[in-house]
């Protein structure tokens, strides 16, 4: 499981607790993780440290996640996350730039799965996760339940 985890992941979130814990989880899976507290810093970091996967929050001060993706012509595979739903307009505008979408709060295992999936270019899985937006109670209602055990 950890043999292929030398890839770099950039975690971007203005919430320090969310950002650092997510980074910690991914480090535990063997990824090299760098962190950015907002979009501006993320763009700056990406210029200097190319990564294989970007875990990106949408709502952030200075520059938000959507704006980051729009600024990049060829962004790395992205796992988008937000406390809000991804509205259909934004989803359509970003198109294939989004590999997966996670609605907060999400099961840490799913974060690991999605990062792994988009890193390996598993578009199908990414598509499926984007469609999870339409779920209401089911999986979101038990984000860290028995799956974590």
């Amino acid at each position, binding site marked *: 499981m950890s043999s292929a985890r030398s890839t770099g992941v950039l975690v971007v979130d203005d919430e320090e*607790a969310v950002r650092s*814990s997510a980074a910690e989880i991914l480090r535990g899976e063997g990824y090299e993780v760098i962190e950015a507290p907002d979009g501006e810093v993320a763009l700056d970091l990406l210029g200097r440290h190319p990564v294989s996967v970007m875990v990106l929050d949408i709502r952030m001060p200075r520059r938000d996640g959507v704006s980051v993706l729009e600024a990049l012509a060829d962004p790395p595979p992205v796992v988008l996350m937000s406390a809000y739903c991804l509205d259909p307009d934004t989803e359509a505008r970003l198109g294939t730039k989004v590999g997966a979408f996670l609605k*907060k*709060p999400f099961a840490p295992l799913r974060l690991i799965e999605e990062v792994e999936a988009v890193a390996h270019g598993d578009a199908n899985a990414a598509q*499926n996760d984007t469609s999870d937006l339409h779920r209401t*109670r089911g*999986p979101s*209602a038990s984000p*860290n339940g028995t799956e974590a055990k």
Partner: protein
Amino acid sequence: MTAKMLRASPLSVVVCVVVAAVAIVGFVLTKNNAAQQDQTLLHGETAQAALIGSSEFGSVVSEITGFIGPAARYDPGSLQAIASAVASADKSAHFGVNVFRRTAAGFEAIAAAGPGPNTGELATGALAATLSEAQSSRASSPISVPYVPTPIVRSGTNSTVGFAQPVSSGSDEVVYFQFTLDPFTAAKSLLADRGPFGLLRLAVYGSSKPQSSSVVVATDKNLPLTGTIAQAEFSVGTRTWLIVTQARSPLAGSFAAAAPWVILALGLFLALLLAGTIEILVRRQCYANHLVAERTEALEISLSDLRTAQAKLVQGERLAALGEMASVVGHELRNPLTAVTNALFLLRRTIGDSAGSGVEKHLDMAERETTKAATLAEDLTAFVRPRQPVMAELDLADVLHEVIEATPPPEEVELVVDTSPATIAADRGQLAEVLTNLVTNAYQAVPEGGSVRVSSGANGAGAIVVVQDSGPGIDPAVAERIFEPFFTTKSSGTGLGLAIVRRLVEAHGGEISIDKAPEHGTRVTVRLPVGEADAQTAADEANRRSGTDRRAGVSSRKAP
């Protein structure tokens, strides 16, 4: 309706009757007045006619006596010739004349012509009495000579009347003459249209009583005259005769006669006109009143509608404000929850299998409570998030079976499912959410075990779902509030489930109600209209049915 329209108002009927009554009274009064006037005029005419008759007879008698009398006194020899001449003047030979002289033996005819005693004969019987009366009568004035008419003698259609008059007052010579005439013919020739006679029908009787045996002159063959008549007595010599008259046409004039009828006709016409006018006015007022009542009612209805709408608006605004807050809270909870979830994950990974049972217990509790908090956050945002249903044609029974498959009953609950096909257009995801919520609630209503009955089918132009449990049932007071957000009867619920369900059902144009089931337990009824599928989603639904929809992939992925 027709009967009501035909019925006249009491007011117009009363006015009609009153005016008609006044017209009739006016008619009667004027008619009486006209009759009275006629009667007065008739009396006047009759008196005049009587006067004329009296003087006519007097002058005729005086003329004849005045012509014959001197001859009888001075030249009795010529008397016969004169009598014959006078009698022959009447071609009908109904005229006779005699001159009598009083002798010791009685009244002896000294000259005669026409019917009557011959010369030298003595007068007998009634004639002798008449002659005697005439001879002994005292004149009322020195210049007039009294005369005495005989009683009328009727023979066939003819009447005979005689007159006896002394040549001079107290003279021994008495002239007697008699006429025999047909009263009807005599009326034509004698009366002609002179004076009042042109206006009258009349009968002259040779007595003071209107006896047919004593009629002298009559304009009508049918006697006695009937109807409005007048009579007057008049003197003919020493006797009293009677004239009975009747007007040929109203004496007061044709207008006076027509006036009562004109009044009656005008009055009745006025009565109808007034009644008609009043009727129209009354009906107009009635119509206006009706209109006012109708408008008032409409106004009251719109006012009540307005109040309802206002109440709804206020309620809506309250809910909107509540939703706003719920949304903010829901979203604000998400980041901390994510961090806590991640931290718990890291904690479990760090501790690994070395954790003692005490730590494990606390970790489990933290995870469980975080899940609850996440559910609350989800419910809060779900309650607020406006989700336009994406309508597609589907079978309600299909969705219900899918839901029950995904949400099987706990072991202690006996589930009875009774569905019949009902095709409607609805948002499949939202419909499933509604049904999941209702079914789960029903399971939770019978924690000690019991039965849940779910039935669905077509209902009129739409569909109906009924979920009924065998639990303790619902208090009606609670039933009213159960769909309000944050209202819950459960110890662990957020109170948003049914609020969300109602919002979704209403977004479909349907309605939801909850009540105590007739037997026992609670019954929730959802009614959905047929709806209209969106063009886009109709194709999607077709794909889903053929199994190529990506959502099918999701559920298979969820399964493990």
